[in-house]
């Protein structure tokens, strides 16, 4: 008898957990509205939730027309009745966020909790909201919305599930710190209703990221894991394609054939200037020094990167590094964190002082995090990265358990 194992990818919006606070990034206003209404439809039709649509992209009547076209609602009278009972709520961004002269955070929050509580009294499971925040950027309050988001937890503490909807154009204007706040204060990140991926367009435009990529490697830890090779090749390949300076620092560089094997697999590698990629061969020196609290080799590397950037007039840099993973695996926890903090400061410093955009991909074997004391230190690792993703590049919340990575790809 044959057993066939099929992995299917379910739409993220069918799997959203109650009280989630979701960051949604949309490639166009049209896409935002389509995806927003679909997310609300699922809540209304399949999960017995009241819904709240907040946008200025369409008038209320246009929203109603869209709902009538695509939702299981038989007549406009039925829709009117649902609106009257606050089961379906359609609001403009202006009336929710800018109804007073001064933006009143408490008033805005109260509107949400009142509607959520009302939904409960109507025997609904809670409120599902879609909040288009474009108005903040249009009126020059981009930083205000970040502060507003900062005051909200990654999981909401009343029965509401909400997508905070950002246009990609607006998201691109945010600095490193602001994006970090957004990632930290939402427990799920979506791009056009799909799980956000580090290879999305929204990432390629902003290279100042400190990314933690978890991969699974069940076999002996010294063996080079194949699970992240496609992502590694894509990450470096895209960097070279965009004329970025790419640096590869891996403990596996000690293996005689490793570099050749990796470099040969990068698509069109011969096309790119050969000095656009630097590989660190003596990675063991970096490891030994880092384990002994000496980051001088890394400081020297920073200087080399900076000099190269000045000499070749390069503004964008991509780095792949797995040395922290080996420090972590060998229980040099504080040294691993110190190195990650150093990277974080270096990315910021090179950006602030020299206008360089640095994106760093740190590779970690998730199997190392299963047991005590390793699992306790996961929080420190996650906290030092702006993005946490799996080996396919799918972005996860910093607070989600590792098991949830598998939940997104259901085995059938």
């Amino acid at each position, binding site marked *: 008898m044959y057993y066939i194992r099929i992995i299917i990818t379910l739409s993220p919006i069918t799997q959203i957990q109650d009280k989630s606070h979701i960051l949604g990034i949309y490639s166009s206003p049209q896409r935002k509205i389509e995806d927003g209404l679909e997310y609300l439809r699922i809540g209304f039709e399949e999960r017995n939730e009241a819904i709240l649509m907040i946008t200025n992209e369409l008038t209320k009547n246009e929203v109603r027309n869209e709902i009538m076209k695509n939702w299981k609602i038989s007549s406009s009278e039925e829709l009117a009745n649902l609106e009257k009972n606050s089961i379906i709520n359609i609001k403009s961004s202006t009336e929710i966020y800018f109804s007073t002269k001064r933006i009143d955070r408490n008033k805005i929050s109260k509107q949400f909790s009142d509607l959520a509580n009302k939904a409960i009294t109507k025997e609904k499971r809670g409120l599902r909201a879609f909040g288009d925040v474009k108005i903040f950027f249009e009126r020059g309050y981009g930083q205000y919305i970040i502060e507003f988001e900062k005051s909200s937890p990654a999981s909401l503490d009343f029965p509401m599930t909400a997508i905070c909807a950002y246009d990609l154009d607006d998201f691109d204007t945010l600095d490193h710190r602001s994006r970090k706040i957004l990632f930290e204060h939402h427990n799920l990140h979506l791009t056009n209703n799909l799980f956000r991926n580090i290879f999305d367009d929204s990432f390629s435009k902003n290279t100042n990221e400190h990314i933690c990529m978890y991969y699974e490697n069940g076999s*002996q*830890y*010294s063996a080079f894991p194949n699970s992240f090779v496609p992502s590694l090749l894509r990450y470096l390949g895209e960097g070279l394609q965009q004329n970025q300076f790419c640096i590869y620092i891996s*403990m596996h560089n*000690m*293996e*005689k*054939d490793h*570099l050749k094997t990796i*470099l*040969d697999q990068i698509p069109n*590698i*011969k096309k*790119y200037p*050969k*000095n656009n*990629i*630097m*590989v*660190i*061969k*003596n990675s*063991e*020196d970096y*490891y*030994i020094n880092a*384990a*002994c*609290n000496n980051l001088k*080799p890394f400081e*020297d*590397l920073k200087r*080399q990167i900076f000099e190269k950037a000045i000499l070749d007039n390069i503004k964008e840099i991509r780095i792949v590094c797995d040395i922290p993973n*080996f420090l972590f695996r*060998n229980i*040099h*926890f*504080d040294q691993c964190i110190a190195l990650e903090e150093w990277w974080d400061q270096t990315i910021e410093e090179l950006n602030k002082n020299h206008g360089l955009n640095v994106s760093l991909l740190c590779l970690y074997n998730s199997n190392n995090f299963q047991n005590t*004391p390793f699992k*306790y*230190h996961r*929080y*420190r690792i996650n*906290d030092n990265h702006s993005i946490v993703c799996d080996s396919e590049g799918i972005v996860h919340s910093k*607070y989600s358990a590792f098991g949830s990575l598998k939940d997104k790809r259901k085995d059938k």
Partner: protein
Amino acid sequence: MLEPVENHNNQGNSNNKKKTILLVTNNIQHYQQNFNNYNIHNYNITLVNWNDILTFIIHFNHDNNERKNLELVILDISMPVAVEYTKVSQLYLTTTTTTTIKEIKKIFSDKRIFFLIPSQSMIEIFLSMEISKREDIRTQPFSVFDIIDLISTTKKKERLYQIQLHDHTIQTYSSMDDKIKDAIKFLKIGIKNNETTVLLLDKNIQESYLQSKMALHDIDISKFRNDKLLNISYSEDWYLLFNQKKGSNKTNTVRIDSEQVNIKWNSLIEESINNGKKGLRVFSMMDCFFEYGLVDELIDYECIRPPKLNKPCLAFCAYKDKHVAQLSEDQIRRLVLTHSSVWI
């Protein structure tokens, strides 16, 4: 094909400047095959068969350069070390081998020696033979990456020596003895650094007991107290405020007096500086919070202090491992994120 650009750090070391790792094993072929796949830039790995080790030692003893360049020794006893070996509790050790090990330890007394045994399950058996300390034991599988880690372990300073003023450290202990040993070491480092040490003890540790332990290290408590280098108190008295007389229902009568505690800390830091010291180092035993059911309050109190303290103070929080095991995921997350050095 792109030529990899070499990073030039530490390049140009000739072979004779390279440090040596000595691996004694009966499985040379296996290691040769494995290690040949790697380039290690600043180290040579010398493989010696157990049968040849004594000859090797004779040669080694006559060559000063070789002795100088030897970084560490690894003794692999995960394979039979003699053709006719006897299994001693499933470890492949013959009487001859244990004698040889003693000889090696004598000859290489100035070098760090690691032992490679077949599996984790044999660590306790091996420890009972009193050949090695726990921290010097490694298990199979063993790769080049493990050798690199042994090099760093050999070079690394002991962690109590790594922490300094402004750090906020957490460590868990499974035994009171280990905790007291560290408290004494913590004090000794403080004396050396000209920092005032505060030891906050669990109620079950009598000061006289601590005094006797310190005497073994030639530490005269009263002298260091007079020199303003030492301050000893009980955690319970330092942190907690008892609203009523202590009764049987302790949980309802006690709270953390955060405000007063902060005032006390600030005043001690100021006093330390005024006395010409560099700052304050505090070793706090945290059991009392658990004994009085003040776990949530403790986590909140810990989180008030950031991972890097603003004032010249080193805070060392000593927990029992069983207490940390009781905490929820979220409590552990908060605790871990509020410390700069986490040894749990």
